[in-house]
């Protein structure tokens, strides 16, 4: 597996473990992470990336990563597709079709984009879905 592929797999492992530090350590100093359920949803730099993941994981009790298509790699990029199952701290459960696209260089992630539909469905509730 290439650097991009390995880094993406490591990110999935860190996400499943809700380990913000491990996730952030995979990124270059000026990397970009796009996480749609966060505000702001574009995180720049390892410090911001770590804080953003910490904020997300504070509300999540358990994460499941279901891989539907093995990581595909090409020219420093990699894509994963599957589903994230989330059990929130309040007990609510959600399953989200997801994909993650990464670009890597020199052993670390330069860009990570998490694709999932973050639109709240239950509009009268103010909680986030992740």
């Amino acid at each position, binding site marked *: 597996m290439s650097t991009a592929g390995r880094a993406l797999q490591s990110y999935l492992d860190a996400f499943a473990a809700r380990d913000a530090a491990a996730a952030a350590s995979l990124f270059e100093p000026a990397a970009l992470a796009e996480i749609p359920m966060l505000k702001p949803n574009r995180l720049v730099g390892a410090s911001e990336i770590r804080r953003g993941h910490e904020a997300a994981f504070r509300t999540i009790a358990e994460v499941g990563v279901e891989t539907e298509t093995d990581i595909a790699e090409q020219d420093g990029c990699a*894509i994963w597709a599957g589903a994230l199952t989330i059990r929130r701290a309040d007990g609510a459960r959600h399953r989200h*079709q997801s994909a993650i696209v990464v670009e890597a260089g020199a052993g670390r992630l330069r860009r990570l*984009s998490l694709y999932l539909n973050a639109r709240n469905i239950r509009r009268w509730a103010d909680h986030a879905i992740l």
Partner: protein
Amino acid sequence: MTAIDAFERYCDAWIRHDAEGMADLFTEDGVFEGSTLDRPIRGRAELLRELRVISASHRNIRTETRLAIPTPTGALIEATYQAEIVGAGGKIDGSPSRADFRLAAIVEMEGDKIKLLREIFDARPLYPEERQRMWTMNRLSPYWQGTANAKCMEWSVYNTMFFPMIYSRAPYEDYAALLEGVTLWDVGLERQTQLRGPDARAFLDYLCCRDMSDMQPGDCRYTLMADDQGLVMGDPVVLMPWPDVAWISHGNTDMTLWARGVALDSDWKVEVSEPDVAPLQVQGPKALEVMRAICAAPVDEMKNYSCVETSVAGQRAVVSRTGWSGGFGFEIFPLSSERAMDLWSAILEAGEPHGLKVTGPIVHRAVERGVTDTGYYVSSGMNALEDVGARTVDLDKPADFVGKAALLRIRDEGVKRHSIGLFIDGEIPRLEWNWPVTRGDEPVGEVRWAVHSFALGRSIAIAILDRSVEIGDRVEVTHPRGVVGAEATAVPFVERGS
């Protein structure tokens, strides 16, 4: 053909609105999934229908594949999508309403055909951050929770009740659902003024500009209602579900208060009330299939503008073959709102096999068909002989009616204005207030109803204009984006079924 080739061809066909081209890329049981869809689209017939509608709801479409990586069974792709939304009227600043996003696509192949295409993107930026907020000074419809569940974004207010208008889809998607499928509307805000008693029929006839005296149980009839000055107050459909009861199913005017006022301290032996009846509309060519599944009465045999008491999903209700769509459909009037959401859920379940969509009133189609609403005439000084429904005013009916004397005077003096259609040049913004119409320097009236016509591919309007403006004449319309030309034309703009 590789998965990446197939995706590129799919994008090209989408840009061309080529539904056949898109469907041909899939296996017979192929599946398309997208983040804004409530459920996957499965099989050729559904792909042909749904992909045509969704792609046609956008224009000036651009796609770009940023990254495409083959897999053993297909490909994983990252791409961008940019498009304008058709018929939404644009933003307040005049820029077009848009759907722009980046997506990840999963393509699974079977031979050289697409077995599965799944597009994943964050839909949140495409819509308002959250739904419109409610105020306690107005009422919630008994079906409000259903409309919120169905992702209604924007409500108006009608008879002091919130009226769900716009859901989380492009305008053409709802329009196509009405013309080709079936739609469910919460019109719990459409209230009934009930007249009951020995004088109910005669009192009804007195309130209406049309001859209602020969209405029989099971009849429905459209009419105008005017005040003592002959000014239009309402254009309801009247139902007569039982021999001694009439329901004036009215628009955004408190007809119950009006009728009570007319009856107060009079000799009329009539009881005026507003029962706990909150209607729903099931409209579209597939409405019959949905109604067959839930209605005890033989709905196939119901004539247009008829009604019957029956049971719907186990609840007593009056069902009528009426509606505000200018097309085929039914209204359901449950005799109590106590189990409103049970009824709502039953209709959703019955409609699911037919692709039922929960929508607001499809104003684009209503204007095409010349159907107006209270907002068209209220506060315009419009008398009943100037309204779109003027042909239903029966000044020769023997009985007196409210406004008759005034309308007779108006007729004898010459009706000064009329309701007429306009083809407006160019695209128009959403109508938020009435637009002045001029002919040179001369003000001749105002536009009171205007939309993009999907059937005709142009902007249309209904205006109240000086009678001297005739079909074929050119006028100018001043709307928020400027002064544009328009040509007077007949209403309706399209015939039923077209």
